[in-house]
Protein backbone atom coordinates (compact mmCIF):
# COMPACT_ATOMS: atom_id res chain seq x y z
CA UNK A 1 0.00 0.00 0.00
CA UNK A 2 1.39 3.45 -0.89
CA UNK A 3 1.88 5.89 1.98
CA UNK A 4 -0.68 8.74 2.31
CA UNK A 5 1.91 11.20 0.97
CA UNK A 6 2.44 8.98 -2.06
CA UNK A 7 -1.34 8.82 -2.56
CA UNK A 8 -1.48 12.61 -2.58
CA UNK A 9 1.37 12.76 -5.10
CA UNK A 10 -0.48 10.29 -7.33
CA UNK A 11 -3.69 12.33 -7.01
CA UNK A 12 -1.81 15.50 -7.98
CA UNK A 13 -0.24 13.81 -10.97
CA UNK A 14 -3.66 12.37 -11.99
CA UNK A 15 -5.12 15.87 -12.08
CA UNK A 16 -2.19 17.20 -14.07
CA UNK A 17 -2.50 14.37 -16.62
CA UNK A 18 -6.27 14.82 -16.95
CA UNK A 19 -5.66 18.49 -17.81
CA UNK A 20 -3.20 17.85 -20.61
CA UNK A 21 -4.34 19.18 -23.98
CA UNK A 22 -2.71 19.82 -27.35
CA UNK A 23 -3.49 21.01 -30.86
CA UNK A 24 -4.56 18.54 -33.54
CA UNK A 25 -6.13 18.47 -37.03
CA UNK A 26 -9.89 18.37 -37.44
CA UNK A 27 -11.02 16.30 -40.44
CA UNK A 28 -14.27 16.88 -42.34
CA UNK A 29 -15.71 13.66 -40.82
CA UNK A 30 -15.27 15.15 -37.34
CA UNK A 31 -12.33 12.96 -36.30
CA UNK A 32 -9.12 14.54 -35.04
CA UNK A 33 -5.56 13.63 -36.03
CA UNK A 34 -2.25 14.28 -34.28
CA UNK A 35 -0.23 14.36 -37.52
CA UNK A 36 -0.89 15.79 -41.00
CA UNK A 37 0.83 13.17 -43.16
CA UNK A 38 0.46 12.45 -46.85
CA UNK A 39 0.01 8.84 -47.96
CA UNK A 40 1.10 7.07 -51.15
CA UNK A 41 -0.86 3.84 -51.77
CA UNK A 42 0.30 1.22 -54.29
CA UNK A 43 -2.23 -1.27 -55.59
CA UNK A 44 0.14 -4.10 -56.60
CA UNK A 45 3.74 -5.08 -55.82
CA UNK A 46 4.73 -4.02 -59.38
CA UNK A 47 3.97 -0.38 -58.41
CA UNK A 48 5.69 -0.49 -55.00
CA UNK A 49 9.15 0.68 -56.14
CA UNK A 50 7.72 3.75 -57.88
CA UNK A 51 5.55 4.47 -54.79
CA UNK A 52 8.59 4.27 -52.48
CA UNK A 53 10.62 6.52 -54.81
CA UNK A 54 7.82 9.10 -54.91
CA UNK A 55 7.93 9.24 -51.09
CA UNK A 56 11.74 9.34 -50.88
CA UNK A 57 13.06 12.54 -49.22
CA UNK A 58 9.49 13.61 -48.41
CA UNK A 59 9.51 13.41 -44.58
CA UNK A 60 5.74 13.92 -44.25
CA UNK A 61 4.89 11.14 -46.72
CA UNK A 62 4.25 7.50 -45.77
CA UNK A 63 3.72 4.51 -48.05
CA UNK A 64 1.23 1.65 -47.77
CA UNK A 65 -0.04 -0.83 -50.37
CA UNK A 66 -1.07 -4.33 -51.27
CA UNK A 67 1.26 -6.75 -53.06
CA UNK A 68 -1.33 -8.99 -54.71
CA UNK A 69 -2.49 -8.55 -58.33
CA UNK A 70 -5.79 -10.29 -57.58
CA UNK A 71 -7.84 -8.11 -55.25
CA UNK A 72 -9.06 -8.91 -51.73
CA UNK A 73 -11.97 -7.25 -49.93
CA UNK A 74 -10.16 -7.30 -46.59
CA UNK A 75 -7.06 -5.62 -48.04
CA UNK A 76 -9.13 -2.92 -49.74
CA UNK A 77 -10.97 -2.19 -46.48
CA UNK A 78 -7.65 -1.87 -44.61
CA UNK A 79 -6.16 0.49 -47.22
CA UNK A 80 -9.29 2.69 -47.21
CA UNK A 81 -9.35 2.79 -43.40
CA UNK A 82 -5.72 3.97 -43.42
CA UNK A 83 -6.19 6.41 -46.31
CA UNK A 84 -9.03 8.10 -44.38
CA UNK A 85 -7.25 7.91 -41.00
CA UNK A 86 -7.35 11.16 -38.98
CA UNK A 87 -3.53 11.47 -39.18
CA UNK A 88 -3.72 11.62 -43.01
CA UNK A 89 -4.28 14.90 -44.88
CA UNK A 90 -4.04 13.75 -48.53
CA UNK A 91 -3.57 10.59 -50.60
CA UNK A 92 -1.93 9.56 -53.88
CA UNK A 93 -2.88 6.08 -55.20
CA UNK A 94 -0.48 4.52 -57.73
CA UNK A 95 -1.08 1.39 -59.78
CA UNK A 96 0.77 -0.38 -62.57
CA UNK A 97 -2.29 -0.76 -64.77
CA UNK A 98 -2.87 -4.55 -64.98
CA UNK A 99 -4.06 -5.33 -61.45
CA UNK A 100 -7.57 -5.84 -60.09
CA UNK A 101 -7.37 -3.19 -57.32
CA UNK A 102 -8.20 0.23 -58.80
CA UNK A 103 -6.25 3.33 -57.69
CA UNK A 104 -8.97 5.70 -58.94
CA UNK A 105 -11.55 3.96 -56.71
CA UNK A 106 -9.28 4.51 -53.70
CA UNK A 107 -8.86 8.19 -54.61
CA UNK A 108 -12.65 8.60 -54.98
CA UNK A 109 -13.29 7.09 -51.56
CA UNK A 110 -10.68 9.39 -50.01
CA UNK A 111 -12.18 12.47 -51.71
CA UNK A 112 -15.58 11.43 -50.34
CA UNK A 113 -14.03 11.72 -46.85
CA UNK A 114 -13.27 15.39 -47.60
CA UNK A 115 -9.53 14.95 -48.27
CA UNK A 116 -7.63 15.78 -51.46
CA UNK A 117 -6.64 12.65 -53.41
CA UNK A 118 -5.08 11.80 -56.80
CA UNK A 119 -4.33 8.59 -58.67
CA UNK A 120 -2.59 7.30 -61.79
CA UNK A 121 -1.42 4.16 -63.59
CA UNK A 122 2.31 3.90 -64.25
CA UNK A 123 1.68 2.36 -67.70
CA UNK A 124 -0.01 5.60 -68.75
CA UNK A 125 2.89 7.83 -67.64
CA UNK A 126 5.98 6.23 -69.14
CA UNK A 127 8.52 4.31 -67.10
CA UNK A 128 10.00 4.50 -63.64
CA UNK A 129 11.54 7.97 -63.75
CA UNK A 130 8.70 9.78 -65.50
CA UNK A 131 6.20 8.15 -63.13
CA UNK A 132 8.22 9.14 -60.07
CA UNK A 133 8.51 12.73 -61.34
CA UNK A 134 4.77 12.85 -62.06
CA UNK A 135 3.99 11.40 -58.62
CA UNK A 136 6.16 14.00 -56.91
CA UNK A 137 4.31 16.79 -58.76
CA UNK A 138 0.97 15.39 -57.58
CA UNK A 139 2.37 15.07 -54.06
CA UNK A 140 3.39 18.75 -53.99
CA UNK A 141 -0.11 19.77 -55.05
CA UNK A 142 -1.68 17.44 -52.45
CA UNK A 143 0.60 18.88 -49.75
CA UNK A 144 -0.51 22.43 -50.54
CA UNK A 145 -4.18 21.44 -50.48
CA UNK A 146 -3.77 19.39 -47.28
CA UNK A 147 -2.12 22.38 -45.57
CA UNK A 148 -4.94 24.66 -46.74
CA UNK A 149 -7.59 22.23 -45.50
CA UNK A 150 -5.94 21.58 -42.15
CA UNK A 151 -8.10 22.98 -39.36
CA UNK A 152 -6.18 23.22 -36.08
CA UNK A 153 -8.28 22.34 -33.03
CA UNK A 154 -7.70 21.63 -29.34
CA UNK A 155 -7.52 17.95 -28.44
CA UNK A 156 -7.54 15.99 -25.24
CA UNK A 157 -7.73 12.38 -24.01
CA UNK A 158 -11.34 11.89 -25.09
CA UNK A 159 -10.24 12.54 -28.71
CA UNK A 160 -7.63 9.79 -28.60
CA UNK A 161 -7.79 6.18 -29.67
CA UNK A 162 -4.72 4.25 -28.56
CA UNK A 163 -3.74 0.72 -29.56
CA UNK A 164 -1.55 -1.74 -27.66
CA UNK A 165 0.44 -4.55 -29.24
CA UNK A 166 3.22 -6.69 -27.84
CA UNK A 167 6.07 -8.34 -29.70
CA UNK A 168 9.30 -10.02 -28.69
CA UNK A 169 7.79 -10.70 -25.26
CA UNK A 170 9.91 -12.13 -22.47
CA UNK A 171 9.47 -12.97 -18.79
CA UNK A 172 9.41 -9.26 -17.89
CA UNK A 173 6.59 -8.40 -20.32
CA UNK A 174 3.82 -9.95 -18.22
CA UNK A 175 5.24 -8.54 -14.97
CA UNK A 176 6.10 -4.96 -15.99
CA UNK A 177 5.73 -3.86 -19.64
CA UNK A 178 2.17 -5.05 -20.22
CA UNK A 179 0.77 -4.23 -16.74
CA UNK A 180 2.10 -0.63 -16.97
CA UNK A 181 0.41 -0.22 -20.37
CA UNK A 182 -2.74 -1.81 -18.88
CA UNK A 183 -2.71 0.75 -16.09
CA UNK A 184 -2.30 3.60 -18.63
CA UNK A 185 -5.24 2.10 -20.59
CA UNK A 186 -7.36 2.22 -17.41
CA UNK A 187 -6.61 5.93 -17.06
CA UNK A 188 -7.26 6.66 -20.75
CA UNK A 189 -10.65 4.91 -20.53
CA UNK A 190 -11.51 6.79 -17.30
CA UNK A 191 -10.69 10.05 -19.12
CA UNK A 192 -13.15 9.24 -21.93
CA UNK A 193 -10.70 7.90 -24.52
CA UNK A 194 -10.74 4.71 -26.57
CA UNK A 195 -8.31 1.85 -25.97
CA UNK A 196 -7.90 -1.17 -28.26
CA UNK A 197 -5.81 -4.27 -27.81
CA UNK A 198 -5.60 -7.30 -30.05
CA UNK A 199 -3.66 -10.56 -30.33
CA UNK A 200 -6.65 -12.76 -29.57
CA UNK A 201 -4.28 -15.63 -30.44
CA UNK A 202 -2.47 -14.72 -27.24
CA UNK A 203 -5.54 -15.20 -25.07
CA UNK A 204 -5.19 -19.00 -25.06
CA UNK A 205 -6.77 -20.48 -21.95
CA UNK A 206 -8.38 -17.17 -20.92
CA UNK A 207 -11.94 -17.64 -22.22
CA UNK A 208 -13.58 -17.32 -18.77
CA UNK A 209 -11.39 -14.35 -17.82
CA UNK A 210 -12.27 -12.51 -21.05
CA UNK A 211 -15.99 -13.10 -20.59
CA UNK A 212 -15.83 -12.00 -16.94
CA UNK A 213 -14.63 -8.58 -18.18
CA UNK A 214 -17.53 -8.06 -20.64
CA UNK A 215 -19.65 -4.94 -20.10
CA UNK A 216 -22.85 -6.59 -21.38
CA UNK A 217 -24.29 -10.01 -22.31
CA UNK A 218 -23.82 -9.05 -25.96
CA UNK A 219 -20.13 -8.26 -25.39
CA UNK A 220 -19.77 -11.57 -23.50
CA UNK A 221 -21.29 -13.45 -26.43
CA UNK A 222 -18.90 -11.69 -28.88
CA UNK A 223 -15.89 -12.48 -26.69
CA UNK A 224 -16.86 -16.15 -26.37
CA UNK A 225 -17.41 -16.52 -30.12
CA UNK A 226 -14.12 -14.73 -30.87
CA UNK A 227 -12.25 -17.04 -28.50
CA UNK A 228 -13.82 -20.20 -29.94
CA UNK A 229 -13.03 -19.16 -33.54
CA UNK A 230 -9.44 -18.35 -32.55
CA UNK A 231 -8.86 -21.70 -30.85
CA UNK A 232 -10.28 -23.73 -33.74
CA UNK A 233 -8.20 -21.65 -36.19
CA UNK A 234 -4.97 -22.17 -34.22
CA UNK A 235 -5.65 -25.90 -33.99
CA UNK A 236 -6.41 -26.09 -37.72
CA UNK A 237 -3.27 -24.25 -38.87
CA UNK A 238 -1.17 -25.59 -35.95
CA UNK A 239 0.26 -22.14 -35.32
CA UNK A 240 0.47 -20.74 -31.84
CA UNK A 241 1.68 -17.20 -31.34
CA UNK A 242 4.91 -17.97 -29.52
CA UNK A 243 8.39 -17.71 -31.04
CA UNK A 244 12.02 -18.64 -30.34
CA UNK A 245 12.76 -15.18 -28.91
CA UNK A 246 9.94 -15.62 -26.37
CA UNK A 247 11.45 -18.93 -25.28
CA UNK A 248 14.95 -17.46 -24.96
CA UNK A 249 13.42 -14.71 -22.80
CA UNK A 250 12.01 -17.22 -20.31
CA UNK A 251 8.48 -17.81 -21.60
CA UNK A 252 7.91 -21.56 -21.84
CA UNK A 253 4.44 -21.99 -23.37
CA UNK A 254 1.71 -20.08 -25.22
CA UNK A 255 -0.43 -20.39 -22.08
CA UNK A 256 2.19 -18.48 -20.05
CA UNK A 257 2.69 -15.86 -22.77
CA UNK A 258 -1.07 -15.35 -23.06
CA UNK A 259 -1.63 -14.40 -19.44
CA UNK A 260 1.18 -11.82 -19.66
CA UNK A 261 -0.10 -10.43 -22.96
CA UNK A 262 -3.66 -10.03 -21.64
CA UNK A 263 -2.34 -7.73 -18.90
CA UNK A 264 -1.94 -4.93 -21.48
CA UNK A 265 -5.75 -4.72 -21.55
CA UNK A 266 -5.79 -3.27 -18.04
CA UNK A 267 -8.77 -3.84 -15.77
CA UNK A 268 -11.73 -1.93 -17.23
CA UNK A 269 -14.86 -3.52 -18.72
CA UNK A 270 -14.55 -4.71 -22.35
CA UNK A 271 -17.14 -3.00 -24.56
CA UNK A 272 -17.03 -5.61 -27.33
CA UNK A 273 -15.07 -6.97 -30.28
CA UNK A 274 -14.28 -5.08 -33.48
CA UNK A 275 -12.84 -6.60 -36.66
CA UNK A 276 -10.01 -5.33 -38.83
CA UNK A 277 -10.90 -1.99 -40.54
CA UNK A 278 -13.80 -1.37 -38.12
CA UNK A 279 -13.67 1.45 -35.57
CA UNK A 280 -14.94 1.28 -32.00
CA UNK A 281 -18.55 2.54 -32.11
CA UNK A 282 -18.06 4.36 -28.80
CA UNK A 283 -15.19 5.07 -26.36
CA UNK A 284 -13.92 2.58 -23.78
CA UNK A 285 -11.84 -0.61 -23.92
CA UNK A 286 -12.18 -2.84 -27.01
CA UNK A 287 -10.68 -6.07 -28.34
CA UNK A 288 -9.76 -6.26 -32.02
CA UNK A 289 -10.15 -9.65 -33.71
CA UNK A 290 -7.62 -10.15 -36.53
CA UNK A 291 -8.09 -13.93 -36.85
CA UNK A 292 -9.30 -14.99 -40.33
CA UNK A 293 -12.88 -16.21 -40.56
CA UNK A 294 -13.63 -19.65 -41.90
CA UNK A 295 -13.15 -19.53 -45.67
CA UNK A 296 -12.54 -22.05 -48.40
CA UNK A 297 -8.93 -20.89 -48.86
CA UNK A 298 -8.18 -20.27 -45.16
CA UNK A 299 -6.41 -17.10 -46.31
CA UNK A 300 -3.47 -16.10 -44.28
CA UNK A 301 -1.90 -16.96 -41.02
CA UNK A 302 -3.12 -15.00 -38.07
CA UNK A 303 -0.51 -12.74 -36.56
CA UNK A 304 2.26 -13.26 -39.17
CA UNK A 305 4.39 -10.51 -37.61
CA UNK A 306 4.18 -7.52 -35.26
CA UNK A 307 3.73 -4.94 -38.02
CA UNK A 308 0.48 -6.49 -39.24
CA UNK A 309 -1.07 -6.26 -35.78
CA UNK A 310 0.11 -2.67 -35.35
CA UNK A 311 -1.41 -1.68 -38.70
CA UNK A 312 -4.67 -3.40 -37.72
CA UNK A 313 -4.86 -1.16 -34.65
CA UNK A 314 -4.09 1.95 -36.73
CA UNK A 315 -6.76 0.92 -39.26
CA UNK A 316 -9.18 0.89 -36.30
CA UNK A 317 -8.42 4.60 -35.89
CA UNK A 318 -5.59 4.53 -33.32
CA UNK A 319 -3.62 7.80 -33.59
CA UNK A 320 -0.84 6.26 -31.45
CA UNK A 321 0.15 2.63 -30.77
CA UNK A 322 2.02 1.39 -27.69
CA UNK A 323 4.33 -1.51 -28.51
CA UNK A 324 5.57 -3.60 -25.59
CA UNK A 325 8.74 -5.57 -26.24
CA UNK A 326 10.83 -7.36 -23.62
CA UNK A 327 13.42 -8.68 -26.08
CA UNK A 328 13.67 -5.41 -28.01
CA UNK A 329 12.62 -4.40 -31.52
CA UNK A 330 13.55 -1.85 -34.17
CA UNK A 331 10.24 -1.22 -35.89
CA UNK A 332 7.99 1.80 -36.26
CA UNK A 333 4.75 2.20 -38.17
CA UNK A 334 3.24 4.04 -41.10
CA UNK A 335 0.38 6.54 -40.54
CA UNK A 336 0.57 6.72 -36.71
CA UNK A 337 3.51 6.96 -34.28
CA UNK A 338 4.66 3.87 -32.40
CA UNK A 339 5.81 4.28 -28.78
CA UNK A 340 8.09 1.42 -27.71
CA UNK A 341 7.84 0.21 -24.10
CA UNK A 342 10.07 -2.45 -22.55
CA UNK A 343 9.83 -4.12 -19.14
CA UNK A 344 13.44 -5.25 -19.43
CA UNK A 345 16.04 -2.73 -18.22
CA UNK A 346 18.83 -4.63 -19.98
CA UNK A 347 16.95 -4.31 -23.30
CA UNK A 348 16.34 -0.61 -22.62
CA UNK A 349 20.08 -0.05 -22.10
CA UNK A 350 21.05 -2.10 -25.17
CA UNK A 351 18.57 -0.34 -27.45
CA UNK A 352 18.11 3.10 -25.91
CA UNK A 353 17.95 4.81 -29.30
CA UNK A 354 14.88 2.70 -30.16
CA UNK A 355 13.11 2.31 -26.80
CA UNK A 356 10.83 5.14 -25.66
CA UNK A 357 9.99 3.91 -22.17
CA UNK A 358 11.63 1.68 -19.54
CA UNK A 359 8.93 -0.04 -17.46
CA UNK A 360 11.68 -2.27 -16.03
CA UNK A 361 12.10 0.36 -13.30
CA UNK A 362 8.98 -1.16 -11.71
CA UNK A 363 10.77 -4.51 -11.28
CA UNK A 364 13.82 -2.87 -9.70
CA UNK A 365 11.61 -0.93 -7.28
CA UNK A 366 12.54 2.52 -8.69
CA UNK A 367 8.91 3.30 -9.61
CA UNK A 368 5.50 2.02 -8.55
CA UNK A 369 3.15 0.74 -11.24
CA UNK A 370 1.03 3.92 -10.88
CA UNK A 371 4.03 6.23 -11.18
CA UNK A 372 5.17 4.40 -14.30
CA UNK A 373 1.68 4.62 -15.84
CA UNK A 374 1.54 8.39 -15.10
CA UNK A 375 4.94 8.89 -16.74
CA UNK A 376 3.80 6.87 -19.76
CA UNK A 377 0.62 8.99 -20.06
CA UNK A 378 2.80 12.10 -20.07
CA UNK A 379 4.91 10.65 -22.87
CA UNK A 380 1.75 9.82 -24.86
CA UNK A 381 0.56 13.43 -24.46
CA UNK A 382 4.01 14.69 -25.59
CA UNK A 383 3.90 12.53 -28.74
CA UNK A 384 0.28 13.60 -29.38
CA UNK A 385 1.51 17.20 -29.09
CA UNK A 386 3.95 16.64 -31.95
CA UNK A 387 7.12 15.38 -30.24
CA UNK A 388 8.43 12.55 -32.44
CA UNK A 389 8.53 9.10 -30.82
CA UNK A 390 11.89 7.33 -31.13
CA UNK A 391 10.84 5.21 -34.13
CA UNK A 392 9.51 8.35 -35.85
CA UNK A 393 12.76 10.19 -35.18
CA UNK A 394 14.70 7.31 -36.77
CA UNK A 395 12.49 7.45 -39.86
CA UNK A 396 10.69 4.13 -39.28
CA UNK A 397 7.38 3.68 -41.10
CA UNK A 398 6.95 -0.08 -41.51
CA UNK A 399 3.83 -1.46 -43.17
CA UNK A 400 2.52 -4.98 -43.89
CA UNK A 401 -0.67 -6.22 -45.54
CA UNK A 402 -1.55 -9.62 -46.95
CA UNK A 403 -4.49 -11.64 -48.19
CA UNK A 404 -7.02 -12.46 -45.50
CA UNK A 405 -10.70 -13.21 -45.25
CA UNK A 406 -12.93 -11.63 -42.61
CA UNK A 407 -16.64 -10.94 -42.78
CA UNK A 408 -17.31 -7.30 -41.84
CA UNK A 409 -19.57 -6.89 -40.03
CA UNK A 410 -19.28 -10.37 -38.55
CA UNK A 411 -21.92 -12.83 -39.75
CA UNK A 412 -23.29 -13.03 -36.21
CA UNK A 413 -23.61 -9.24 -36.00
CA UNK A 414 -25.29 -9.31 -39.41
CA UNK A 415 -27.83 -11.87 -38.17
CA UNK A 416 -28.66 -9.83 -35.11
CA UNK A 417 -29.13 -6.61 -37.04
Amino acid at each position, binding site marked *: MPEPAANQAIARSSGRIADRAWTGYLRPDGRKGIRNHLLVVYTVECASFVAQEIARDEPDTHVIGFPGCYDNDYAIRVMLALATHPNIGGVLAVGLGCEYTQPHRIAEAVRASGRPAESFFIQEHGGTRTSVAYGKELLASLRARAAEGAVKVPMTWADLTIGAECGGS*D*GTSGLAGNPVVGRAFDRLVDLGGSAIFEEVVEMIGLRDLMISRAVSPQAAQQLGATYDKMLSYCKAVRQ*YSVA*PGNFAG*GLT*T*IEEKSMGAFAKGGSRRIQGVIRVSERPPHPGLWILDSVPDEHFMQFGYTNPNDTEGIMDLIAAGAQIVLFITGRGSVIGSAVAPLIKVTG*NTRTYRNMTEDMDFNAGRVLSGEL*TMDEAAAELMDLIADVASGQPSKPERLGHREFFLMYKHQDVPSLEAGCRA
Partner: protein
Amino acid sequence: MSVESAASAFQVHASDNVATLLAEAAASVPLQIVGPAPNSTLATREKIELGHKVALTAIPEGAPIVKFGIVIGIAMRPIARGEWVHLHNCRSQLDERSGHFDVHTGEPGDNAYA
Protein backbone atom coordinates in the same frame (compact mmCIF):
# COMPACT_ATOMS: atom_id res chain seq x y z
CA MET B 1 6.25 -3.91 -4.80
CA SER B 2 9.80 -3.17 -3.80
CA VAL B 3 12.66 -5.42 -4.80
CA GLU B 4 16.17 -4.44 -3.78
CA SER B 5 18.11 -7.70 -3.81
CA ALA B 6 19.72 -8.78 -7.07
CA ALA B 7 18.86 -12.43 -6.33
CA SER B 8 15.10 -12.31 -6.10
CA ALA B 9 12.14 -13.78 -7.93
CA PHE B 10 8.51 -12.65 -8.14
CA GLN B 11 5.62 -15.01 -7.42
CA VAL B 12 2.59 -13.49 -9.18
CA HIS B 13 -0.21 -15.49 -7.52
CA ALA B 14 -0.39 -17.26 -4.15
CA SER B 15 -1.23 -20.59 -5.85
CA ASP B 16 1.80 -20.45 -8.21
CA ASN B 17 4.42 -23.21 -8.01
CA VAL B 18 6.96 -21.13 -10.00
CA ALA B 19 8.38 -17.60 -9.61
CA THR B 20 10.01 -15.30 -12.22
CA LEU B 21 13.61 -14.15 -11.76
CA LEU B 22 13.90 -10.35 -11.48
CA ALA B 23 17.63 -10.56 -12.22
CA GLU B 24 19.97 -13.38 -13.20
CA ALA B 25 20.87 -15.73 -10.31
CA ALA B 26 23.89 -18.07 -10.13
CA ALA B 27 23.68 -21.71 -9.04
CA SER B 28 23.35 -22.50 -5.32
CA VAL B 29 22.60 -18.97 -4.19
CA PRO B 30 19.81 -17.98 -1.80
CA LEU B 31 16.93 -16.56 -3.81
CA GLN B 32 14.41 -14.30 -2.13
CA ILE B 33 10.83 -14.99 -3.24
CA VAL B 34 8.60 -11.87 -3.16
CA GLY B 35 4.94 -11.51 -4.00
CA PRO B 36 1.50 -12.20 -2.50
CA ALA B 37 2.67 -15.11 -0.30
CA PRO B 38 4.82 -14.43 2.80
CA ASN B 39 8.38 -13.75 1.63
CA SER B 40 10.61 -16.83 1.68
CA THR B 41 14.02 -17.93 0.51
CA LEU B 42 15.13 -20.96 -1.47
CA ALA B 43 18.41 -22.14 -2.95
CA THR B 44 18.81 -22.20 -6.73
CA ARG B 45 19.98 -25.54 -8.10
CA GLU B 46 21.44 -24.02 -11.28
CA LYS B 47 22.02 -20.66 -12.96
CA ILE B 48 18.69 -19.02 -13.92
CA GLU B 49 18.36 -15.92 -16.12
CA LEU B 50 16.22 -12.79 -15.81
CA GLY B 51 12.61 -13.48 -16.79
CA HIS B 52 13.00 -17.26 -16.44
CA LYS B 53 11.22 -19.39 -13.82
CA VAL B 54 12.29 -21.27 -10.70
CA ALA B 55 10.29 -24.10 -9.07
CA LEU B 56 9.00 -23.09 -5.63
CA THR B 57 8.11 -26.68 -4.67
CA ALA B 58 8.92 -30.17 -5.86
CA ILE B 59 6.64 -30.83 -8.87
CA PRO B 60 5.91 -34.47 -9.88
CA GLU B 61 5.92 -35.61 -13.51
CA GLY B 62 2.54 -34.88 -15.16
CA ALA B 63 1.59 -32.22 -12.60
CA PRO B 64 0.47 -28.74 -13.65
CA ILE B 65 2.93 -25.80 -13.68
CA VAL B 66 1.02 -22.82 -12.27
CA LYS B 67 1.87 -19.12 -12.85
CA PHE B 68 -0.49 -16.10 -12.63
CA GLY B 69 -2.82 -18.58 -10.87
CA ILE B 70 -3.39 -20.50 -14.12
CA VAL B 71 -1.93 -23.71 -15.58
CA ILE B 72 0.77 -22.68 -18.05
CA GLY B 73 2.03 -26.22 -18.81
CA ILE B 74 2.62 -29.76 -17.62
CA ALA B 75 5.79 -31.13 -15.98
CA MET B 76 7.52 -33.52 -18.41
CA ARG B 77 9.55 -35.09 -15.57
CA PRO B 78 9.91 -34.61 -11.80
CA ILE B 79 11.14 -31.09 -11.01
CA ALA B 80 12.97 -30.27 -7.77
CA ARG B 81 12.47 -27.12 -5.68
CA GLY B 82 14.99 -24.51 -6.84
CA GLU B 83 15.28 -25.99 -10.35
CA TRP B 84 14.95 -23.94 -13.57
CA VAL B 85 11.52 -24.56 -15.13
CA HIS B 86 11.54 -24.22 -18.91
CA LEU B 87 11.30 -26.01 -22.25
CA HIS B 88 13.24 -29.09 -21.07
CA ASN B 89 10.84 -29.98 -18.26
CA CYS B 90 7.55 -28.16 -19.02
CA ARG B 91 5.37 -28.56 -22.12
CA SER B 92 2.30 -26.73 -23.42
CA GLN B 93 -1.11 -28.38 -23.16
CA LEU B 94 -1.92 -27.26 -26.73
CA ASP B 95 1.13 -26.40 -28.85
CA GLU B 96 2.29 -29.55 -30.66
CA ARG B 97 5.73 -28.04 -31.33
CA SER B 98 6.31 -27.57 -27.60
CA GLY B 99 9.08 -29.99 -26.61
CA HIS B 100 11.03 -29.41 -29.87
CA PHE B 101 12.76 -26.15 -28.95
CA ASP B 102 16.35 -25.60 -27.80
CA VAL B 103 16.22 -24.89 -24.08
CA HIS B 104 18.67 -21.97 -24.27
CA THR B 105 17.96 -20.29 -27.65
CA GLY B 106 14.37 -21.43 -28.28
CA GLU B 107 15.44 -22.45 -31.80
CA PRO B 108 13.03 -25.00 -33.33
CA GLY B 109 14.61 -28.41 -34.02
CA ASP B 110 11.70 -29.99 -35.91
CA ASN B 111 12.34 -28.49 -39.38
CA ALA B 112 14.67 -30.24 -41.84
CA TYR B 113 16.11 -27.28 -43.88
CA ALA B 114 16.83 -29.81 -46.63
